[in-house]
């Protein structure tokens, strides 16, 4: 729902780092989005296209890696991975008490600059 805020934060970070490293153009950027981050990759890609405009990332390609949700069940101890956007119960024992170990990422991995 707040993909534009995320796109603007992303642009700010990568343009600042690109300049700091002494380059003038960003050609591509790779990010990791967790399935349970609340961010929709398509909406973020659209927001990035709409906001990159005349920045030094104006021609940058955005590559999004989706990270599946993984968890540890507090009741049966199962370690699970799912393609779902949200898990409401442990897939093994149906307990609703579990710890999410991955899936909330919203991280920049690297970028291609010139």
């Amino acid at each position: 729902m707040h993909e534009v805020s995320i796109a603007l934060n992303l642009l700010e970070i990568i343009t600042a780092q690109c300049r700091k490293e002494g380059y003038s153009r960003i050609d591509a950027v790779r990010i990791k989005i967790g399935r349970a981050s609340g961010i929709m990759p398509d909406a973020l890609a659209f927001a990035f296209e709409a906001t990159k405009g005349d920045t030094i990332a104006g021609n940058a390609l955005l590559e999004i890696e989706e990270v599946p949700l993984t968890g540890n069940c507090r009741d049966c101890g199962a370690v699970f991975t799912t393609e779902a956007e949200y898990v409401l119960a442990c897939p093994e024992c149906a307990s609703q008490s579990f710890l999410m170990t991955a899936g909330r990422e919203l991280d920049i991995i690297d970028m291609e600059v010139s």
Partner: protein
Amino acid sequence: MKVKVATKILEANDRIAVENRRLFDIAGVFVINLMSAPGAGKTSLLEKTLEQKTELKIGVIEGDIAGTDDAERVERLGAPVVQINTGGACHLDANMIYEVLGELPLDTLDILVIENVGNLVCPAEFKVGENMKVMLLSITEGHDKPLKYPLMFQESSALVLNKIDLVPYTNVDMEKIRKDALSLNPGLKIFEVSCRTGEGISEWIAWLKEISKKT
């Protein structure tokens, strides 16, 4: 040329949130990020809390997309208040809070309540420098909400169930709300209140007094 970035996209926000928290700690004020859906009763809870003449000094930051109605309601009860209009944004972020801190007498406050934009999704994602998140759910929203909006329930330290005077007129299953909320967050502290009748408000205020002593 490949350059490693390895940064969280919300890092800038998180950094400002840490700075806000530092300023709150210096001032000795306990900060609550109050979140709920629109119309659940966040401002009513603040009004009921301020109406009880306690020794607690409470300040408020009101976050809304537009308008100053909420700030006026709180100001009438004598609390220092600042209104932030997000101009469309679905949540408050750390920088919006940082920019208005100078307008509040932080040193004189025991508790600062940041009333977030009414929304059950986005506010949970953005830290603003709070000591804890508190979530309000009005029982008329339905007992399915914990499982539909799990992040909000997982991130909050306390859940205030409002409008309990309406329970007899609805099909709400209060036990299911409690059970699902606690399964998502076993440490969640739950209050049942009615901001209309005042029921349960004294327990909520007693808890506010207790947590504010920790700063």
